[in-house]
């Protein structure tokens, strides 16, 4: 691309074309400035102030918000919970997504049906499905505990209201939400693997399905897997809906996660400066993940 630019310097572009280019990008440029660039910049500034909505005046306080974050036990819990959540949801939803993709692609019967079934949670209203999960996991009237009692578990867990179980329960819902999405990405990766490779592997003696998987599918799917992994981590580090609907971070902060803490500090307690500092921590995590993702993409290009 840079070569093309050099060969035809911008100065020599016809005036009409240059004008059209500017004119056509102008609306997007304005919206970008007003809705994304300026507010993002303002968030960065805000993080270094003690601004509270409704309070008169504010001061620059340097890194005080970040110092407070470092000492805030609540924030530490929130960060830890987020990491545990991502650590559970990403690998398990990827393993299940890959399993579903392999199983579906391994035959012809039921392809469309099962693809639709696994994908359904992706297009379902998260808040409504959270309500369905709340019923399913309800300690006394929930079907899950009814089954557990029937098979002899005397006091089944309070899935969403016990601090031991709540994060696991939310993670299970997160896995359920992400599985189909990952499956679709893996299916795209699987169709890109040339069929001849499987035939070649079979000629070379890889008769069993497992051999073919470890010889052909897995190595060639490696870059896709890395890519799906970072995407799922970016998606799940944003967990908010299920927490806001089901637990509000409780009980006793056991399900407090990064974005929910940010939401609570900013829009409930109106401590905008502090909330902006949390937002920047969140942004930093996302940026690290995106950086990992570009690494993964680079590798995918080499293999592709």
């Amino acid at each position: 691309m840079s070569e093309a630019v050099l060969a035809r310097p911008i100065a020599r572009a016809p005036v009409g074309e240059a004008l059209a280019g500017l004119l056509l990008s102008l609306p997007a440029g304005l919206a970008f400035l007003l809705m994304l660039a300026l507010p993002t910049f303002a968030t960065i500034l805000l993080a270094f102030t003690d601004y509270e909505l409704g309070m008169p005046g504010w001061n620059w306080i340097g890194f005080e918000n970040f110092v407070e974050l470092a000492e805030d036990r609540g924030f530490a819990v929130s960060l830890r919970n987020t990491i545990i959540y991502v650590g559970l949801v990403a690998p398990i939803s990827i393993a299940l997504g890959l399993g579903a993709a392999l199983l579906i692609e391994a035959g012809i019967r039921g392809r469309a049906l099962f693809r639709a079934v696994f994908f359904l949670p992706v297009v379902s209203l998260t808040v409504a499905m959270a309500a369905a999960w709340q019923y399913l996991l309800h300690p006394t009237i929930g079907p899950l505990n009814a089954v557990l009692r029937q098979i002899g578990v005397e006091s089944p867990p309070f899935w969403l209201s016990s601090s031991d179980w709540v994060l696991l329960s939310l993670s299970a819902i997160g896995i359920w939400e992400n599985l189909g999405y990952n499956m679709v990405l893996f299916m795209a990766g699987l169709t890109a693997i040339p069929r001849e490779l499987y035939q070649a592997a079979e000629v070379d003696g890889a008769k069993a399905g497992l051999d073919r998987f470890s010889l052909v599918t897995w190595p060639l799917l490696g870059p896709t897997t890395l890519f799906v992994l970072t995407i799922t981590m970016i998606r799940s580090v944003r967990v908010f809906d299920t927490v806001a609907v089901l637990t509000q971070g409780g009980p006793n902060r056991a399900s407090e996660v990064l974005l929910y803490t940010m939401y609570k500090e900013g829009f409930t307690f109106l401590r905008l400066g502090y909330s902006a500092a949390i937002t920047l921590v969140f942004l930093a995590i996302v940026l690290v993940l995106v950086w990992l993702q570009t690494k993964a993409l680079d590798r995918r290009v080499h293999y592709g």
Partner: protein
Amino acid sequence: MAASGRRSLLADLPRLALLALLGLAVLMPYIWMLSASMKPLDEVFRASLSLWPQNFHAVENYSRVFSQVPVFGYLWNGVVVCAGILFFQLLFAVPAGYALAKLRFPGRDVAFGLVMFGLLVPPHVPALPLYVAFSQLGWLNTYAALILPFTISVFAIFLFRQFFKALPDDLVHAARLDGMGELEIVWRIILPNAWPAATAFSIFSVVAHWNDLFWPLIVIEGQARATPALGVLYFRSDEAGDDFAALMAAAVIMTLPLVLAFLFAQRRFVEGIATTGLKG
């Protein structure tokens, strides 16, 4: 994968059994949601494991939802917000994507750099200042507050730029030789060619914003402008209390539109999400 030809049903059985097991697990919340939405409340509270209600109570449950909350209002708000967002996203991103792909103009490389930069920023980051601005302007509880922050999608610009770059340059050159103006080219040549990318992006956008809770929760209070996601949340905390039968009915109603759309256009949905997959 290694599906060479049709296997006998018997050989296919283990695969189908595994898929059915996993599929059933995924469908569990839907199955119980539907079941509870048709049961009278006392049956729900008995926690019986029979899926079909002894006394069929669906009519009562669903009409309780319709009489207690403005269901159509919520759905309408959802449609207005999703359509408004998508309209502006396409209106801004298609021309910008074309300009970045095919036109030479000063500042183009900087503009594209900004797009790439914008891709890195999740929508939660500009939320605080936008909230302050909207509340100063008195725009809270309006459609404008729900729509405006998402009118710019750098992801859409990126997607359309990549898509238009793959279109042959001759298409544009030929139109210029025919004496078309630059804007006429966008309208008559580029737009008709943008459909595949536009469809994929539209599905991605509608799914994202129909389901969004974070931003509506921040800028909306009360029922008048509540989106479906907020509607379920309100119903859950206010009206329903422990009325799980009606709550499940409400959940079914609000989930249905997008799920039906998905079932009718499955391939497009899956492709749309897969091609837009790089956006987390």
